[in-house]
């Protein structure tokens, strides 16, 4: 059995952080939410590029299945992380569902293609309708969405 040595680091993160003098946690978080509001607005523009890439990969998957399935998964996975980060939790829910459809697959049936197409169109609709956050109309949709997506995935056996 190999020997393990225990080491106390010379520097700890806490050494450079005062326990007083900074903003309250509530102030710090509120400032962050305000500061990132403009990024949330800009995100819709960036996301258009991702959705265009996703749509292109979807269209090309009919002729070059394996590579495009992987490409679609990678884009959907990236979008899953970004949607909620920029105030669009519905985008994260839909892309999470799309990842579940794509992850186990190396090729796609016609039914899979239809399920994927609906996911992409749903994401486009979220941006088109401006369904941001988790209250109001976005909240209502978000409440029903998991069941709808699960039913949709069931159609392709995912």
């Amino acid at each position, binding site marked *: 059995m190999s020997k393990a040595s225990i080491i106390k680091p010379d520097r700890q993160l806490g050494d450079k952080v005062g326990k007083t003098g900074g903003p309250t946690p509530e102030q710090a978080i509120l400032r962050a939410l305000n500061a990132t509001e403009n990024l949330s607005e800009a995100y819709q523009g960036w996301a258009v590029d991702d959705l265009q890439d996703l749509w292109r990969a979807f269209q090309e998957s009919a002729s070059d299945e394996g590579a495009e399935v992987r490409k679609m998964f990678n884009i959907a996975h990236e979008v899953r992380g970004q949607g909620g*980060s920029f105030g669009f939790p519905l985008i994260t829910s839909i892309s999470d569902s799309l990842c579940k459809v794509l992850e186990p697959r190396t090729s796609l049936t016609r039914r899979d293609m239809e399920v994927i197409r609906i996911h992409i169109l749903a994401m486009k609709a979220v941006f088109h309708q401006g369904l941001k956050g988790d209250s109001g109309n976005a909240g209502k949709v978000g409440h029903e969405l998991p069941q709808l997506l699960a039913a949709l995935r069931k159609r392709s056996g995912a």
Partner: protein
Amino acid sequence: MSNFDFSELKVLICDDSLQIRALIKQCLMAFGIQNIVDAMDAKTGFQELVDTDPDLVITDWEMPTGNGIDFVQHIRRSPDSPNPYVPIIMLTGYTELDRVKIARDNGVSSFLAKPVSAVSLYRRLVSLVEDQRLFVRSDSFFGPDRRFKVSETLEGPDRRV
């Protein structure tokens, strides 16, 4: 909770997504951190680490050239690393238990699941400030003591996907 003063910290963010880098940077600045450097891949990230010797590294897992785990290993083990003990937050959309174990076994200090929120980032920062873990070095492992609060990365309101 204390009114932490983070103003003296230097942070390195490594993520191939310009948007995610911008988001984290804006949040950290709102928390009072002014000294922030960023990189879009592991190679540039390591060079920034050598040049700036940050107090904290936040890195993505999946990057086109050199993934986050390779980057963490390099930080922990390279003789060129200015501080092999630097706290490292692994940012990832993958929160499966196997992935968490891989990250932990390679010396990651903490996990932050995407989607990222200001609340989850602040909480993770505070948990690392209060983290007094010792490091363990053996033939097969070098990193923060793995027996500490592993479940914290998997449960609770921060786990959103």
